[in-house]
């Protein structure tokens, strides 16, 4: 093997590649197999189990009922009769879209501002990123008890100082409160990605655009925005994956309430398994959550592609 490599030092490297690559296939698989098998065992196998559970009736604290097969009964109930679930789907959709929209717009604004050179930029940037490192649960505790509280909260102080009426935000506007809490945390994440995109953009392109007469809004719309498109896509995709799973904020701030007004799909799945011990229904809800998440992701992507095509045309 080594002799042959030495004897053809200047031969086309592709032939050398071919010789080295083909015989070692099994050894190379060892690089990935441990991780892939682990992933399959811990994500795909449980998902298949989830499918299996979802067609059974299985309540953990009623073992005498057994685990009878019920077919699509759990799904049928969730879709046609379970108003809490139907509401949860809508709530999840509203909350997710609003959080992504608010944090993306704010993040874009901050990124554009921070992309300019000014005195103290490093400090301001560090400050802006800080909320991302606060634990989501802690963030929710602080907002719930100190900012949004109707009697002692900071917002209440602001309202009463301005002689405005008191508002119990978490009771009157539970969804918007959750959106505010999560957006405060997600804006820095969006900003970080977009800022990386802006800083990778060459000054020459902008300079050329400016000479061609593009300035201000036109420069932003026709130069900056299309160049940022990939980064915005990344923001939305990563953001959606995480925000669809939003849990801690809801559990701490509203516990899905008042009533079920801020109950989202993940929170309802948690309640079904944790409070009602109903494995079958929770599994069916989990499967529906996957379908729901895929639909949203696909819809978002299509929307994005269309938006950017129009922007560039």
């Amino acid at each position: 093997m080594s002799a042959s490599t030495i004897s053809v030092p200047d031969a086309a490297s592709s032939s050398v590649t071919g010789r080295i690559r083909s015989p070692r296939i099994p050894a190379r698989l060892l690089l990935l197999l441990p991780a892939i098998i682990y992933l399959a065992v811990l994500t795909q196998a449980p998902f298949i189990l989830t499918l299996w559970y979802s067609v059974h009736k299985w309540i953990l604290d009623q073992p005498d009922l057994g685990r009878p097969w019920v077919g699509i009964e759990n799904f049928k109930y969730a879709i046609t009769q379970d108003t809490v679930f139907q509401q949860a789907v809508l709530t999840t959709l509203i909350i997710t879209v609003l959080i992504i929209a608010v944090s993306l717009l704010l993040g874009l604004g901050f990124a554009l501002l921070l992309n300019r050179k000014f005195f103290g930029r490093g400090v301001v940037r560090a400050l802006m990123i800080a909320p991302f490192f606060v634990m989501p649960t802690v963030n929710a505790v602080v907002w719930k008890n100190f900012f949004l509280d109707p009697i002692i909260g900071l917002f209440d102080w602001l309202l009463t100082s301005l002689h405005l009426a008191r508002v119990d935000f978490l009771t009157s506007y539970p969804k918007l409160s959750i959106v505010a809490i999560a957006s405060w945390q997600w804006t820095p994440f969006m900003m970080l990605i977009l800022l990386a995109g802006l800083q990778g953009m060459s000054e020459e392109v902008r300079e050329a655009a400016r000479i061609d007469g593009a300035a201000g809004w036109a420069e932003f719309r026709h130069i900056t925005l299309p160049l940022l498109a990939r980064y915005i896509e990344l923001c939305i995709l990563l953001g959606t994956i995480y925000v669809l799973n939003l849990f801690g904020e809801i559990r701490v701030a509203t516990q899905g309430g008042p009533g079920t007004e801020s109950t989202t799909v993940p929170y309802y799945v948690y309640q079904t398994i944790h409070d009602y011990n109903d494995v079958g229904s929770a599994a069916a809800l989990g499967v529906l959550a996957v379908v729901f998440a895929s639909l949203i992701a696909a819809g978002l992507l299509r929307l994005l592609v269309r938006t950017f095509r129009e922007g560039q045309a």
Partner: protein
Amino acid sequence: MSANESTKRLGLLRSLLVHAALAVVGLIVAIPLYWTLISSVTTNAGIFATPVQWIPPSLHLENFSQALSAAPFGRYFFNSAVVGVVVTATTLVTSALAGYGFAKFQFPGRRILFVVVLIALMVPFQAIMIPLFVLARQLGWLNSYAGLIVPGAVSGFGIFLMRQFMSKVPDALLEAARLDGCNEIQLFLRIVLPLSRSALAALAVLTFLASWNNFLWPLIVAQNPDILTVPLGIVQFRGSYFTNYTQILAVSLMAAAPVIVLYLVMQRQIIETFASSGIKG
């Protein structure tokens, strides 16, 4: 002359406006942070004083030590650290190996295996947590480190990220090293890993952050006070010691510290990774 002057004046006005906008926006972000900071060193009465005390009249640093002894927070921090470090280490090793395999080698079944990774990346946790919970219960892993660590030890996102990054290592470089007599292990350790440093750093920070902040899974598998992690501890502390507001804030600040330190150390690599991942898609 006058036209020149007016453009200058316009430029000045614009930069003034931009700076004003920056200042307002900075304040919106900074006020909650500043308020949290000062409230953690004031008294319970001071927190709710009207008008708001923007400068605390006296410093109560003892809030921090008192909070630590008011609940077993030392234990919670230790638990979170063990889980976070182990999960981050296993994720880095497996993601680097599998990412390299996907990026640089051809073998039968490559596509199918990559689909397995993508599915793992996309399936939301709620869809798999029920069997995981049932399984953990049957294995007796409730209230154990194994129960907390095992479901997060390998990451589809990590493998995906490393594959994207390692695809950019030039093949010619690897071939040259092979011709120089580098064996496959040396190649990986001496060439591929050092070139992927920034992606590994970003993955380390994101993985540790996710594990440190994780709330849903620990909430399901951990009830025993000995095994609680920091977020669970804080939420429980809020429930049982409702009046100790300053202590809640003190603990919350301490909980953010490790992640902030980690980020500051690896800031450059993270931004580099974001920048390149956007370009390559």
